[in-house]
């Protein structure tokens, strides 16, 4: 959003538009260069800048399900959505993406260009390995998962391993830099052993990760813990590598 605002501000400054517009869009940012309001009335009124919005319903789906994209624009002459192409100025479309996608809408008009984004999360029921990087710019979700990585545990243990300290330090610094993010920590166990005991063990695992983040400086009220025990298995094969994937504390954005 701030990038968009900055770009609009710059565009307006360049064509020396009215002070009112400049003040309205630039008020939260220190305008780079000349403050348009100091230039005084000069140029004729320009065409109004286009506005655009895009929404998706639902925002998260399982693989194979579809979503409805819905977009609206004003003062635009040409609207495109990456991956779909040129579309009507206002419209809806049903799509079923095969993985999490950032739908990026660009609206061009006489008054300039504006953009809108919506991120759709596709839950793919396979391994939690990081998805292949895509060309679309990293949404906050992707950046989150890149910086705040799952912590894995030894069998029947909720003690943090030495290799977890790197993940914790990286996660803590990312969370410190993004103070608005809240996190749910899910505690998971492999499918051996008993369901009831594993729920308590998963709770201890998630709490161990939470305690490590708190001692690394993350405020405790930003961290919520849920134990799933062995009720939500990522990987269902009877192998150590699969069990290891299931024995983890998993971080996700708490919306």
């Amino acid at each position, binding site marked *: 959003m701030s990038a968009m605002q900055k770009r609009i501000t710059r565009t307006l400054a360049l064509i020396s538009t009215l002070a009112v517009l400049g003040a309205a869009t630039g008020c939260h940012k220190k305008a780079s260069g000349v403050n348009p309001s100091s230039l005084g009335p000069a140029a004729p009124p320009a065409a109004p800048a286009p506005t655009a919005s895009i929404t998706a319903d639902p925002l998260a789906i399982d693989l194979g399900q579809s979503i409805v994209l819905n977009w609206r624009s004003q003062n635009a002459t040409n609207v495109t959505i990456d991956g779909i192409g040129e579309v009507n100025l206002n419209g809806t479309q049903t799509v079923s993406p095969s993985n999490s996608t950032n739908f990026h809408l660009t609206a061009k008009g006489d008054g300039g260009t504006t953009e809108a984004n919506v991120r759709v999360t596709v839950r793919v029921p396979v391994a939690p390995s990081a998805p292949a990087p895509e060309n679309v710019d990293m949404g906050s979700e992707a950046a989150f998962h890149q910086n705040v990585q799952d912590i894995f545990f030894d069998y029947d243990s909720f003690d943090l391993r030495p290799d977890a300290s790197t993940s914790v330090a990286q996660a803590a610094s990312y969370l410190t830099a993004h103070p608005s993010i809240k996190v749910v920590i899910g505690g998971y166990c492999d499918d051996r052993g*008993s369901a*009831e*005991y594993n*729920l308590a063990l998963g709770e201890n695992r998630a709490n161990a990760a939470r305690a490590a983040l708190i001692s690394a400086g993350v405020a405790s009220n930003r961290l919520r813990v849920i134990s799933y025990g062995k009720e939500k298995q990522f990987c269902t094969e009877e192998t150590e590598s699969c069990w290891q994937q299931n024995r983890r504390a998993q971080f996700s954005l708490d919306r």
Partner: protein
Amino acid sequence: MHSPRRTPLFQHAQFSRIGAIFLLFAFVSLLRAQDTFKTETSSGVTNVRIAVADFKPSSTDQQTSGLKGTFDTTLYSDLANAGIFDIVSKSLLPQIIPGVPAEMNVQQWSAAPASAAMVAFGNFGVQGGKILCNGFLFDAKNLQYPQVLAKQYNEDASEDSARQIAHRFADEIIFRLSGGSQGIAESKIFYVKINGGNKEIWEMDYDGANQRALTSLGSISLSPRISPDNSRLAFASLGKDGFQIHMYSLILGRMVAFTGTGGTNITPAWAPNGKDIAYSSSRSGDPEIWISDANGALARRITSFRGPDVSPTFNPRTGSQIAWISGRTGLPQLYIMDTDGSAIQRMTDGGYATSVSWSPNGQFLAFAWDRKYGPGAPGGQDIYIMEIATKRWIQLTHDGGRCDFPSWSPDGRHIVYANTPDGKAGHMRIMTMLADGTQKRALTGPGADMPNWSWK
């Protein structure tokens, strides 16, 4: 445990008296662990030989034969599964079917090949949409006054009533012939039905009949526990704040309030007074055993030790002790304590012990135990019972796949449990057996887990 002691003795040259004593000691203590002890599977006498006659149809209503078939099958299986009878095979019974005492000639039944000590018989008919059933129990050895029991039942005609009448008559017979122990034929089993990604709470009769859903929460619900008076069911269910205790009223047929708290709250257990509930709560950051009233209020913490504390169960006889599972020393072990958190005693000496259930007479614990648990270990998880006073245990299941969640029947003679022959969680089914490990049979098909037997 004993073999490391024994091996150096054999290597020793002067292996004589000391060695012999030591060996004897090792052998005796080995026996001690494996020794059997008396469970309540028998009534203290040799099993009574009982003949169960098919009941005589007493009306020509077209419903009679179908419902009478249900009744006969249910009565026979109730008595055969009770564990206290030597039941006479139907092929050995006399040809004549008596319907009323006047038609009964007990000598026919006490003579070979039936050789019965007791005979259950009667008549069954449907008239005007009602079942009328008369049941009798005769002592076949008492020629002068053979009648032990006579019961009359009058219910609306349905499959379910036919089954319930049979259960009630069976319970009367068991009560008379078992030395006063209440029958279990009217008891219920509550369990988790695995339904795709969801798990709902279901209910069935003790013999696996009449399976039906109680909840439809579209979530994962676990650990159903029925209150002592059969009025309420506590369980844990996954919501947006993780697993929490929920309460279902069987009288109102809907959910009722249970005060929520922070953290993960799971594995409820009823005190025998029906007023208190013990459960595992991590509201303080670590899963501990807490006790609250049945509405979730007045919660107090009982344990405080780092690591998982979970799956409590009250001593149903006294209500003053709790058995539970704790991971305070690593792998989960079985412990008991008083309800104020004192007198903690560890019961298992190793392995992976979970899912404890306390026998109705207070003497035994049934639990799931994998004695050789670990990565790559060949252990299997089986059902064991332990005599609390001596900590002696016996293994009840062997090589039948993974077993879990034993729960005692109200009479303490049976144990219901979950079993998956191939170890796959989705193939879990509910089995029952006598508390000495005999007469195992499945009550459900695959997709059923965590059984809990009602208190009565």
